[in-house]
């Protein structure tokens, strides 16, 4: 038994120090040196120098003068009962998807309610086909992007709220649309935070 145990203990100690400590600490050091912005979360500052979020993490937007991100299924602990959770969209401390399947009544109810709410906020959408990402929740609940189709549909509401011509807002959407990586991988998308920052810069409204 000791014949097996002694090298087993030693190899565990060696690989533990090498792979569990030296490697992650070394990468932290090199990463912080070479790419400090990314290594610390790609934080975004407002023109006033305040940290307003991460370029990679979506935020909750619900006022009508902003572009809105996708619905989010993240939750947080219920303040009244720590064993339960309550909806808390874009909770970046606890990522989560809805995990609802294609035959789920709960999914159907949620989609129906969200569609209704959307049509209330922007009546010209009633009966229109909507882009797939506009009503579905993302995998992480923190999706920073929306599809260009989604952004284009929201532009008229945003333009109206900010008293700007629609084509100006559409031009902003166009300018903030990223093509697929290397032209091939993934999809075209608009980063909602970048879009709203540009919006606030060019056509500010006082909150």
């Amino acid at each position: 038994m000791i014949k097996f145990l002694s090298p087993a203990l030693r190899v565990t100690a060696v690989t533990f120090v090498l792979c569990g400590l030296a490697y992650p600490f070394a990468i932290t050091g090199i990463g912080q040196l070479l790419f400090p912005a990314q290594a610390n979360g790609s934080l975004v500052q407002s023109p006033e120098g305040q940290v307003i979020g991460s370029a990679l993490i979506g935020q909750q937007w619900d006022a009508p003068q902003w572009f809105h991100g996708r619905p989010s299924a993240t939750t947080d602990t219920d303040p009244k009962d720590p064993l339960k959770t309550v909806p808390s969209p874009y909770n970046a401390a606890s990522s989560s998807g809805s995990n609802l399947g294609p035959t789920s009544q709960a999914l159907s109810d949620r989609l129906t309610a969200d569609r209704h709410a959307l049509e209330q906020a922007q009546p010209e959408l009633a009966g229109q086909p909507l882009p797939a990402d506009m009503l579905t929740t993302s995998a992480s609940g923190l999706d920073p992007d929306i599809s260009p189709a989604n952004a284009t549909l929201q532009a008229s509401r945003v333009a109206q709220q900010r008293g700007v011509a629609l084509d100006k807002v559409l031009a902003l959407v166009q300018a903030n649309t990223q093509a697929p990586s290397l032209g091939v991988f993934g999809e075209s998308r608009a980063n909602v935070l970048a879009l709203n920052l540009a919006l606030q810069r060019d056509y500010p409204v006082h909150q």
Partner: protein
Amino acid sequence: MSHLWLQIIITLIATLALSLVVGRYLARVVTDQKTVLDRVLDPFDNLLYRLIGKQACSQAMNWKSYTFHMLATNLVMALLIYLVLIFQNVLPLNPQHFAGMEPMQAFNTAISFITNTNWQSYGGESTLSNFSQMAAITFPMFTSAATGFVVAIAFIRALLVSDGGANLGNFYRDLIRFTTRVLLPVVVLLSLFLIWQGVPQTLDASVVTDTLQGGHQTLTLGPVAAQEAIENLGTNGGGFFNVNAAHPFQNPSALSNFVLMLLMASLPAALVVMFGHMIRNHRQSTLIYGVMALMLVGFLLLCVIPEQAGTPLLTKLGIDTHASALQAGGNMEGKEVRFGIAQSGLYAAYTTAFTTGSINSMHDSFTPLGGLSTLVQMMLQCVFGGKGVGFLNFLIYGLIGIFVAGLMVGRAPEFLGKKIEKREIILVSLAMLIHPLVILAPSAWSMVVPYGVAALGNAGVHGYSEVLYAFTSAAANNGSAFGGLNANTPWYNLAIACVIMIGRYPSIIFLMAVAGSLAAKPTLEPNIGTLRTDTPLFGIWWLATIVIVGALTFLPALVLGPIAEFFAMNKHLLF
């Protein structure tokens, strides 16, 4: 649509090209030939051998000794992980002051990570300290990957000798060489690439921001990139964050997504190429590679096409599921905009084929056929499969196929000149039967007891699919989940940990016993009576064996789950 196909074709071709290069390098590493890194690594390895014990690292091991050393090492490592997890509250680097993990969950997690499964019944960012993420999660990602790989190497060596297999290599030496010459150099480069793409790597735990609209958001950070690189290269799959590679911090762009897929595919696919170099029979390895690749493409299509088509529910609610330049369309519930359908479907197919288990979309929200594709790949666990073990599983089917074909046509059943006889077939059958047993029995039990059903996240047949997926993932040492299931209950923590262990170790032990038995046999020259195993005809037979055995075993379970759901969905039934 052409955008979708282009991405799929590029990914498949890149996988093939990479595996050819890596396979050649692997063969050089395991047969002790010169490699470019020797000058730096030889002194370093020697230092490690000295620390482990010169004698332990140089002794010849037969199959029993090799297996016992492997098991003892895994046991010690599992214990260390368990202790780190339950005592993380008193260990350093815990700025969020997380409590020690509850013992049952820590047991489940230790078993899960030491076996390369990486099933997670916890949410990473809300449970683990940064020290635990490095010491209890990143650490075994290396060693569990190396363990699976070296077992396969020992097995292949047994096929090549006829001296009784007194020397199938040295477990410690193999483990160290694979870690320092294959895993570490790649993950160092790749983790820096990931940081460049936007993956955080810091010892800070979180940042609180004031959002533009006027609110607060707490961003969880940590040493993510270092873990992410080995998570995929080692086909481990456990994520720093609850939603794994769907989290924008873990997988910020479609480019990082593409690289992660290549990472997880590189070693399992290269192993087949390496096999060809080792046995000096590239016809045989090309045939194996071809059959595996054919299955991968089939399951990939079975996943991507239904996901792009969307679901009747989405269509009924006026959602446009057609792909265009302005949107990906399809079933976007549980998928990220930057990945769309192509990168999500590819990732799902890759993570279950190469049994990695990291996810970039919620498999629980997939269409019935898309979900079926991921489930079946884990049931077969030989569509390339995880590091080492997937290849061995594929050989299991081959040995059964050889034996049956030999009996049918009256040829001598041989594989690479080794006679396949009763002892091997009994051991191989045992190894093969464990897998369905530990999937189907606990799934069935979970559906008839209240503590099993209470954890379901979806109602109706889909809820049953969640349980079937959980045990399949555990048995296949995959670790991905239909995440709606609340698996952090005493029953699921315990049952899944047991299934993971039984799915991993007994089959390895049976296969090492086969290795011992084959190593004792003389290597015969092929003659007129030999059943050739490197012809296209035998490739078809090999595939047929997998399909027939797999279908006979799992079809009833699948009919009750995803297949029933497929018909229900098209009848617009909701649960």
